[in-house]
């Protein structure tokens, strides 16, 4: 064991850093560990904003925020968790402002709030269109202020189980090479999403679901894994994100006939309907031949140059760089792309998993506040509120328990397995498996899902997993061996794909992001207002169901 701490946070995006700050302030010896430097985390790519009922732009209340979130989740969100999120959100946002977050301001100098999809009020606090960037940096400033030790460029690979509880992690030190074991009384997973399962994704290369897969491997369940959100406005060909803030500011979505087609899908909310609704509408337009080279058009021109330059400066930069389009003059071609995993590590409202000492927060967790469809602006809020809660609980637990031990056998097993991978010289390199996985997931497990395609995808994933058993790593060196870590990431992704397909096939209804237009086009509350719970037993995903927690909101028909 190289070192030990009270609390070890794996992943250093918004959830991870917020958790570490909270644990530190609770008096724990906490460390961060991340495969990339904290400010490189993908939370920084969040653009549009963070939802809290501050009431700065209208009369608003946590109650209303909660209702919008419950409805947005297509009634799959746990209502007790949603209530906590919405109640704690305002103070958590004030806290960020007090730490120095550079929020955009109203005329009277308060935090500005803009309308966002499926929200009844303008509730999304923002910093132009770089809100995530601003939050990542303000959190890192607070991490530096507290001098919280950070294992930078450490690739977390295996959780350490000892005495029936999680007591640390075994990680590959990217800069210097070698496996390092870091012991901890509590471990918080804050590793983000797994968008790299898809070829068209807003997610960074780093988003490979490491925490979810590591938890799965120590027997923790994953929840609602079929629920992958497709964001309606991503750029061809690779899926770079264009913020929902564009539509919040008033942008139109047009088809090839210059028609604001959403009037046929969401006549009231139009471009500010929920993401699942808009992505399906776009995909339908494209499939029925009213797309523009596989896209629809996001038109900002009527907003005018001033507003675009002030509030959507980053969007303009992205459009010009990656699409060659200046949104002041031309509409931006956009299409749905994989964006956010509502599903994740099964965790309670304190981030606790079924394994003692193991917590999860942020996108890698499923508490669940997003259910079957997340509202724009709720992800950043979740990272902060539930990051804080996990940090607090993990610190309290750690401070009342004493021992940490990483068994020698765990270390030697890990070393042996890694050596075996590195010494293999004959076989396939991982990239072709990676590309095939991402292409087929997009094709067969995308915006619309069909039984035969999901079945086929299950078989494809099984074959890819077999091929993965024989992959070869080109780089045998110790220093910055990203060839090795990318191979390990692919292993994580393949296991998650398996869980997603199994859950998707089992959910015989259409709810939120899981749309089965051919065989089960409507929601079935009687049978499926339940979470899918997947564990791996004998190397195969095993599925169970768990009822949604309801408090006061009865399911209604969902219209925008």
């Amino acid at each position, binding site marked *: 064991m190289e070192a030990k701490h009270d609390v070890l946070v794996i992943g250093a995006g918004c959830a991870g850093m917020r958790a570490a700050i909270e644990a530190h302030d609770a008096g724990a010896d906490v460390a961060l560990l991340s495969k*990339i*430097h904290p*400010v*490189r985390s*993908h939370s*920084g*790519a969040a653009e549009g904003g963070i939802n809290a009922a501050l009431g700065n732009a209208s009369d608003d209340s946590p109650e209303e925020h909660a209702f919008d979130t419950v409805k947005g989740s297509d009634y799959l969100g746990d209502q007790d968790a949603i209530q906590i999120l919405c109640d704690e959100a305002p*103070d958590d*946002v*004030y*806290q960020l402002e*007090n730490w*120095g977050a*550079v929020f*955009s*301001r109203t*005329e009277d*100098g308060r935090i500005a709030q803009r309308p966002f999809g499926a929200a009844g009020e303008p509730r999304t606090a923002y*910093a132009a269109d*770089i809100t*995530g*960037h601003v939050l990542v*940096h303000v959190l890192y*400033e607070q991490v*530096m202020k507290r001098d919280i030790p950070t294992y930078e460029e450490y690739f977390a690979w295996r959780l350490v189980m000892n005495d029936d509880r999680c007591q640390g992690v075994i990680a590959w030190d990217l*800069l210097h090479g070698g496996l390092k074991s870091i012991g901890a009384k509590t471990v918080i997973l804050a590793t983000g999403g797994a968008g790299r399962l898809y070829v068209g994704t807003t997610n*960074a*290369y*780093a988003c490979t679901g490491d925490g979810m897969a590591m938890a799965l491997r120590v027997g923790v369940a994953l929840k609602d894994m079929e629920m992958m959100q497709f964001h309606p406005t991503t750029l*061809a*060909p690779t899926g770079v*994100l264009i913020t929902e803030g564009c539509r919040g500011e008033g942008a*139109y979505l047009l088809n090839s*006939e*210059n*028609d*604001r087609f959403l*009037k046929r899908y969401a006549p009231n909310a139009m471009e500010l309907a929920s993401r699942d609704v808009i992505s399906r509408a776009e995909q339908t337009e494209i499939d029925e031949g009213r797309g523009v080279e596989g896209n629809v058009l996001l*038109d900002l*021109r*009527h907003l*005018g*140059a001033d507003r675009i*330059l002030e509030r959507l400066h980053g969007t303009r930069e*992205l459009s*010009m*760089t990656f*699409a*060659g389009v200046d949104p*002041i*003059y031309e509409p931006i071609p956009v299409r749905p792309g994989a964006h956010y995993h509502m599903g994740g590590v099964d965790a309670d409202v304190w981030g606790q998993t079924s394994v003692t000492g193991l917590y999860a927060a942020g996108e890698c967790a499923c508490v669940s506040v997003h259910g079957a469809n997340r509202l724009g602006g709720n992800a950043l809020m979740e990272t902060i509120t539930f990051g804080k809660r996990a940090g607090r609980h993990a610190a309290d637990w750690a401070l009342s328990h004493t021992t940490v031990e990483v068994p020698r056998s765990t270390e030697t097993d890990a070393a042996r397995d890694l050596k075996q991978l590195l010494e293999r010289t004959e076989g396939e*390199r991982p*990239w072709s498996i990676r590309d095939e996985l991402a292409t087929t997931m997009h094709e067969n497990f995308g915006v619309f899902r069909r039984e035969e395609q999901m079945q086929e995808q299950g078989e494809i994933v099984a074959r890819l997993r077999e091929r993965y058993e024989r992959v070869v790593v*080109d*780089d045998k*060196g110790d*220093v*910055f061996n*990203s*060839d090795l870590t990318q191979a390990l990431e692919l292993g994580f992704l393949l296991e998650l794909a398996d869980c997603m397909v199994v859950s998707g096939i089992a959910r015989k209804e259409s709810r939120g992001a899981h749309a089965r237009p051919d065989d089960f086009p409507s929601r079935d509350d009687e049978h499926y207002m339940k979470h899918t719970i997947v564990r791996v037993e004998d190397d195969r995903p095993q599925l169970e169901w768990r009822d949604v927690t309801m408090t006061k909101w009865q399911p209604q028909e969902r219209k925008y």
Partner: protein
Amino acid sequence: MAHAIAPVPGSTTMELALKIWRYNAETGAKELRRYEVEAPDWATLLDVLDIVKDKHDGTLAYRKSCRMMICGSCGMRMDGAAVLACKTRMWDIAQSGHEPVISPMGNLPVVKDLVVDMSPFWGKIRAVKPWLEPGYDEVAEKERIVSQQQMNVIHKEALCIMCGCCVSECNSMESDPEFLGPAALAKGFRFVGDARDQTAPERLSDLNSEHGIWDCTRCYFCNERCPKGVDPRDAIAKLGAESIKEGIDHDMGAKHAKWFVTSAKTTGWLRETELVPKTQGIVSAIKQTKFALGLAKRGKVPPPVPPHVADRVKESRALYNLVKEQGRDGALGIVQGEHALGRIEFTEEAGVRELAPELQPGVEPPHAEG
């Protein structure tokens, strides 16, 4: 801003060659290796590196993550100039047949291939105490009231993604590795300019010490190469202006700048003869008498008496007074100037563009039938 002129994404592929400086940390071996790749037309430098790593050589090392210009991982040099690999479209280069040379960023130790050790970079960021000092510990009940205009003062500095491109190109740091450098100083201004921070005088005093703001040589390479429009040199100028406004002028750099103002105000010209004593002090200036006499002998020094006063010196004084009256000294003046310049640049760029004829701004497009 240059527009990437490329065909419709995905319609074709391109062939290109590039040379990459490989560095093996374990053996210390350095080698410039050439790769030929086929890439989709939309490929960026980062995409091309991915193709090299996947299909040609898995040992190639570089950092990457977001591939959308926000995480700051992929700073490196192309043909000697720092770029973000994910922002650099390769189509034009491929068409020209040029073979770019890719190397790691400068001013930071190389770890392997295109990966540099960023710890000196982060050490300097930490040195500027990069966190808000609001003057109290407990959380205020709500947010602090700050106008958008006040927030705009630090808008550009808040865009910084800490990629290190400016540091890579910094000439001053090349000669003095201890120099705080453009990224850390821009971060410093992010707090000095923040209306919520209560420690601006202390911060300015720190930033005025050795290796601080006055060691910048004003080569403007940081502004030139910043991929996000942060303009670190302008942040350094704002720190200078704020320092002088606060009366923190002990550094020779500050004295030098102040003398420019004084001499422009009094005579409308730069009074060079007095520049050295005013900047370096009398004692130091006396030591340079021999050098000054040499200059004088060759006609390089104007006679100090009588002072050379410009014809329309009143204009220069009026300008000085106007800036004072309007409160445009200090950082705010520079910030306001930036906004005005931004508008001019945008309008100039817009001058060559025409609105798409089928749609007009402000008018909802006609609905199709059905």
